[in-house]
């Protein structure tokens, strides 16, 4: 197996994630896209690890960290979504223009 086949697959996944991030209006869907991107990163990490074969399996450890942080991120993200939805009756980002002034 080539290393590149994994990397390119991950690149594709990552790009799709970016696409989703940019075109989706619903926050939940945006979060899904972010997950996609994180998964792509994980594939990279694991692939590199299997080439480098470090004694402490650093790549895998990092992947675990990424997953953990991703879980936390989802938790908080969804909480925020809930809150915004409660206040604005919408989960669409383009209606959230608080940052425009």
């Amino acid at each position, binding site marked *: *197996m*080539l*290393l*590149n*086949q*994994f*990397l*390119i*697959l991950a*690149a*594709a*996944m*990552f*790009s*799709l*994630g*970016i*696409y*989703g991030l*940019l*075109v989706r*209006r*619903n926050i*939940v*869907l945006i*979060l*899904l*896209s972010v*997950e*996609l991107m994180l*998964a792509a990163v*994980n*594939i990279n990490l*694991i692939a590199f*690890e*299997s*080439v480098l074969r470090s*004694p*402490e*399996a*650093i790549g*895998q*450890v990092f*992947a675990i*960290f990424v*997953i*953990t942080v*991703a*879980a*936390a991120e*989802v*938790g*908080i993200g*969804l*909480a925020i*979504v*809930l809150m915004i*939805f409660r206040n604005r009756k919408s*989960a669409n980002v*383009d209606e959230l223009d608080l940052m425009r002034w």
Partner: protein
Amino acid sequence: MSFIDWLGSPVNWVFLVVGLAILFSSWRVVTAKNVVHAALYLVAALGGAAILFLMLSAEFVAWVVVLVYIGAVLVLFLFGIMITRAPTGKDVGLDTPHKTSPALLSVATFVLLSWASIQAFGTTQVESVGEPTSTEVLGIALLGRFVIPFEVVSFVLLAALIGGVTIARRDLTPAEEEERRAV
């Protein structure tokens, strides 16, 4: 090494199938008109990733992905979708109307990343499915060299937990508060 040579190895067949499945699922995640479907496609994409992990002898991580992502996170997502009353049927309003520049950007990203990987790694080989990294190694690494990041991450999780609860909890209206006090 030609494509034919590449196909000569059976693992690559597996990779091809799984990879295409992942790509398709990912594509559907970002294009599906139904929110629930999108979430389910993410399950598929992540499941594919887990298979790749297995192929790369990262057994533990693979099962973590399955358990954490597919088991927990996705459930969370579905809850989120339901609570926010996101339209569960087909909905044309899910996407912004301007898709050109995101598409261009994502293609550019892909081209750039792929080109960079090819330039950098060429034909570097990955060991085919071998001895999976033992959980013992990972455990020692996590509680040895990486114990501080590990603790930090667990704090992050704790903070996320508390923060999620705090943020998502609805403040009672004065009337409700009155009611609660009465009880």
